[in-house]
């Protein structure tokens, strides 16, 4: 657990970058610091590993004030990932990843073995190990940056806008990968971003900062979206806050109909329903058949019942002219259909809180 106790940072030129910040980053969770540029996110992060020293207040690492720990020692126990990756251009990828183990005095072979293991873990081809950083794409360099931060297995990871400089598709991959890694590793992560969508996707807790370095609100993403503390947070969250909140509403309670499916090649359609879902012998969806044009199949959208959110279910419904979403199980077999009515009911439920 990382604890900020009324921490203030005043730079020598008088700029107050962080103003009496009190915050907890619980062990094993991702705490995201989000806010507009210049609101003191980087400063806050760097006070944790003492790249910047706080002017007032204390920062505790599992109850121990960081001010009392020798900086190099402190830093070797805290992984750090930045936007430009910060890889050493003169060292091969494997040695970049093994940097902290080398500093800790591991023998070369063990450090390199560990590095190879981590490259694999972050989804990189081991063949890249012998290359130099400039020979990798931006996304690959970021993965190396994450591997390097994890090399000595530090309990704490600080990440400063690590995915901001890569293109959106790569960014999404890296975010998914981070969540997958975190589900295995359970690190205490403090993640800085100016992108509220990224904050909501990654954070177990999200702290919104405003310019001047004060804390506007700290909450889990769902609460943040449904109960923004003030106008600043509301505005920062953006206009489609309502839709985005649906990604935290489960489809568990969504009522499904099981009488709207017909087997492939079978007759059906006599039920008087305007749309019926055609399903293969082993239960996979094929397409929607309308009562008016039974010869053609229309596209369908699916969601995994109970696992995917209402946002995904709604998206699936909007993808199909039938207006219904197909509920499937983890293997992709149809378990039922969520009609417009069922979706409506669930949305009304969600809107109530």
């Amino acid at each position, binding site marked *: 657990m990382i604890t900020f106790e009324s921490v203030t940072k005043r730079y020598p030129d008088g700029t107050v970058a962080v103003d009496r910040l009190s915050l907890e980053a619980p062990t094993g969770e991702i705490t995201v610091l989000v806010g507009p540029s210049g609101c003191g996110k980087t400063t806050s992060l760097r006070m944790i*590993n003492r*790249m910047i020293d706080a002017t007032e207040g204390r920062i505790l690492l599992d109850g121990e004030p960081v001010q009392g720990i020798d*900086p*190099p*020692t*402190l*830093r*070797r126990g*805290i992984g*750090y990932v*930045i*936007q*430009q*990756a*910060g*890889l*050493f*251009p*003169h*060292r091969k990828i494997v040695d970049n990843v093994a*940097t*902290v183990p080398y*500093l800790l005095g591991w023998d070369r072979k063990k450090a390199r073995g560990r590095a190879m293991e981590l490259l694999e873990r972050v989804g990189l081809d081991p063949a890249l190990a012998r290359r*130099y950083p*400039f*020979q990798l794409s931006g996304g690959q360099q970021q993965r190396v940056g994450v591997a*390097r931060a994890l090399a000595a297995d530090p309990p704490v990871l*600080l990440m400063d806008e690590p995915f901001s400089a890569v293109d959106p598709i790569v960014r999404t991959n890296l975010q998914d990968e981070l969540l997958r890694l975190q589900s295995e590793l359970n690190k205490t992560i403090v993640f800085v971003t100016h992108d509220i969508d990224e904050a909501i996707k990654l954070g177990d807790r999200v702290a919104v900062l405003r310019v001047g370095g004060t804390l506007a609100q700290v909450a889990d993403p769902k609460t943040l979206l449904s109960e923004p503390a003030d106008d600043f947070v509301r505005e920062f969250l953006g206009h489609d806050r309502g839709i985005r909140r649906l990604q935290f509403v489960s489809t568990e309670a969504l009522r499904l109909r099981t009488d709207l499916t017909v087997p492939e090649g079978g007759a059906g359609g006599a039920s008087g329903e305007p749309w019926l879902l055609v399903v293969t012998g082993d239960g996979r969806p094929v397409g929607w058949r309308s009562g008016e044009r039974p010869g053609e199949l229309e596209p369908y959208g699916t969601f995994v019942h109970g696992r995917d959110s209402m946002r995904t279910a709604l998206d699936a419904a909007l993808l199909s002219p039938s207006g219904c979403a197909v509920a499937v199980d983890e293997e992709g077999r149809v378990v039922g259909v969520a009609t417009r009515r069922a979706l409506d009911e669930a949305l009304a439920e969600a809107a109530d809180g």
Partner: protein
Amino acid sequence: MGDGPPSIWEWIGRNWDTGRVDSIKSLLTDHLTMSFVPILLALLVALPLGLACVRWRWLYQPTSGLMNVVYALPSLPVFMLLISVTGLSQATVIIPLTFYGMAVLIPAVVDGLNSVPDHVRQSAVAMGFTPLRRLLLVELPIAAPVVLAGLRVVAVSSISLVSVGALIGQGGLGGLFTRAYQNPFLPPVIVGIVLIVALALIADGLLVLAQRLLTPWVRARKGAAA
């Protein structure tokens, strides 16, 4: 033939190692000393001074200004002035050449260290490098290509400039030229020029080799760009 002027090979054979101070071998040794000692000294002084100029930025302007003035001074009057202090010794040649070397190497060290990207330096700090280790393991290696390029310039110019010292009797192989001046006889001149150029080429070649061995990542980058 026997009483004509000797061929160049005969002349070399006769003068290679006479045991006197003006034998080719002894001049070559002097030349090596007077060119390599300044290169080494210049590097030893430029490294800490360059580091200081990066650490305290205000130092850089005055230092580089002074060095440029030194570089602009014509070597001959400098030799003459120094004679009153150091006499006709090798030091009279070594001292100015050291300053010329510094004038090239200090900016090279500063540029090299400034070529270390800030995010690389920051991430070294964040990973727990102590300042000394960061300097030795991160900053200097990344600065090395620029410093080595400066060193190549210094090595070649130092080897060639030593010969000017012949005017005060301390020119290494340059001594072969003054002799020809008194007595128009070509072989010593040719031998002097060939040896000096060969020395410069060998020194440069060794530095290129060092560059390849010390900074393989630079070569890989150039390969990728081509």
